[in-house]
């Protein structure tokens, strides 16, 4: 919580200015990172990159600008859409071509990123600032492309002043572009679902079926999809395949025992983030639950708790799905701050 109330020198200056001119101090919480009370401490390095309105707005422009792609056709928003909790509607295969690294991975939802310490399905990136470099360079590790983006931003008419306002820099450089994107993406906090309001006693109650679903979920799913982020941040093989083209966590650790393990994804807004799994194997939550019940593929690295599948009582799968829908945060997916800039 400490961090939230940290006052930047600039803000002090404003406060000073305002109090001198005897005006009221207006604090705009729209551009402050406020950690929900039912959440843990964020892990993002806000001490290096404090959120400001100008920084956030610059990030917003960048997020929606296809200038970041080679041919000017793709923006972050092409694969991460607000109405889908920043997941991808279609299945965008993403190949990360360091030599034989080919992969078809589904774009995950972007939410609560300030609380993660490892990103991507394989956890290969350990800082949110570094994530867009991969997104931008995608095909092969040729560091030329990030520099091209910087060149294009320098040549465009609008970005000079936006960077100047946000970071007081005279020249656009990549770290400040990454800072701006991180300001935009760390602010994507999803904590106002029906479930959250129920947990925080904010005059919201769950229906009987939702409560039954919650109970079942806690018994059968929360060993992996645990805590308020609905992930224990570990890497596991949940039996969706026994022959992994995409090695998953083993790409990073280079351990055979990690082949086919992927990060346990958060289930927040899961109703909106179809298709499911890193390889987009399932289209519906029904298919996902059927998978856990009777579709588990056996392989060396399969999580031992799933060897026999998960046994459900009659109606239990429906209850769980009904519960999962309480994780949809309608305020988040319609938040004006995250829409395309005018």
């Amino acid at each position, binding site marked *: 919580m400490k961090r939230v109330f940290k006052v930047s020198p600039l803000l002090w200056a404003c406060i000073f200015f305002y109090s001198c001119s005897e005006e009221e101090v207006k604090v705009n919480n729209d551009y402050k990172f406020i950690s929900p009370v039912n959440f843990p401490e964020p892990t993002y390095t806000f001490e290096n990159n404090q959120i400001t309105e100008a920084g956030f707005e610059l990030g917003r422009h960048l997020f929606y600008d296809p200038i970041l792609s080679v041919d000017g056709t793709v923006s972050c928003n092409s694969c991460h859409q607000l109405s889908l909790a920043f997941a991808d509607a279609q299945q965008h295969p993403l190949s990360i071509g360091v030599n034989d690294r080919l992969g078809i991975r589904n774009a995950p939802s972007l939410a609560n990123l300030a609380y993660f310490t490892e990103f991507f399905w394989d956890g*290969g*990136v350990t800082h949110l600032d570094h994530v867009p470099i991969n997104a931008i360079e995608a*095909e092969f590790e040729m560091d030329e492309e990030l520099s091209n983006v910087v060149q294009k931003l320098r040549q465009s008419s609008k970005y000079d002043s936006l960077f100047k306002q946000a970071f007081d820099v005279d020249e656009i450089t990549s*770290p400040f572009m990454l800072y701006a994107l991180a300001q935009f993406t760390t602010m994507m906090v999803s904590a106002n679902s029906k479930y959250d309001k129920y947990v925080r006693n904010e005059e919201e109650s769950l229906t009987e079926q939702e409560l039954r679903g919650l109970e079942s979920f806690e018994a059968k799913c929360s060993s992996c999809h645990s805590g308020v982020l609905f992930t224990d941040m570990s890497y596991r093989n949940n039996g969706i395949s026994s022959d992994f083209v995409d090695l998953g966590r083993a790409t990073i650790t280079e351990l055979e025992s990690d082949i086919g393990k992927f990060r346990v994804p958060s289930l927040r807004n899961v109703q909106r983030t179809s298709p499911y799994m890193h390889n987009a194997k399932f289209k519906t939550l029904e298919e996902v639950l059927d998978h856990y019940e009777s579709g588990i593929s056996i392989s060396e690295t399969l999580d031992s708790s799933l060897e026999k599948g998960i046994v459900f009582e009659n109606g239990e799968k429906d209850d769980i799905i009904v519960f999962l829908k309480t994780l949809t945060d309608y305020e988040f997916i319609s938040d004006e701050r995250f829409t395309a800039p005018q």
Partner: protein
Amino acid sequence: MKLYQLFLLVLVASVILSCDEEENTDSGTMMVYFSHFGGLDHQSGEALELDLAESGSTDYDIHSMEEGIGMFNVATLQYYVTNIKLEGPNGEIFIDPMKVSAKAEEVTGYYLVKEGKSSSKAIMLSNVPAGEYDKITFTIGVPEEGIKEGAAGGVLDPAEGAPFWNWNNGYIGLTVEGMAMNSEQPQVIGDGWTIEEGSYAFHIGGWKDIEETTANNIKTLTFDLDGQLSVNAEQNPAIHMGFDIVQLLEETGVDFASTYAVHSPLLGANFAENLNKAFFLKHTHQTDSHEMKEDDHDHDDHSGEGHNH
């Protein structure tokens, strides 16, 4: 003049004065040079200075007696030097301050030494406490401290040529690329890039301490100097380090027929293990008489033996 203007003037003046006072006579500088070699001359036993080849050129000007290595050339050679430390016999110690920042001008202590760019091969350490020094320690690679702060500028900015793995975030500690007669690398044509047939690329990176893996290739090397160097305000002592690519490949046991594309921490581990044999103290100078030149051939005596002028 308003009173507060006067006050400001006094303030500025006092800052300038106090800055003046800080000019420390009890400290000096130390220059650390890096030169690169491609094996020893078989007759004289002298270390042979490395000449960069044109990218894709099949002029193989480096030779190893090891069959798996044979004839090859180097088109790119660069590495990060970080965490430089000097120590002396009487407890003298200098630790180069390390700072990561998005602002390029604020980044300190991280150096990308690149063959072909002579300014990068001379590292000037300042504010070294006066005293005697007989030991240098430095790290090859960018350790966790350089990653965990997030986006960084200057020599750590991937848009400015910092060698960076974006899929397994981290800097490539040592890059060696070129062509080798024995390399089995087939031609690969991608979207806007080509990998030449017969080329090789060794990218040694990986800083993560992941349980059970050897992924951490950040190596810290220590060298005893050939005697003691005095640091004081009057003299310009220098330490001249060497790096021999043939030594590295021979100690690592590289066979170009099977090892030509190293792009992961585990594949690079063997190389990292042998860095301490590839780097060596060339010699030291108590008073550095050499100006930095466009190419620094002339300040090498090619003896390969340590001496202290």
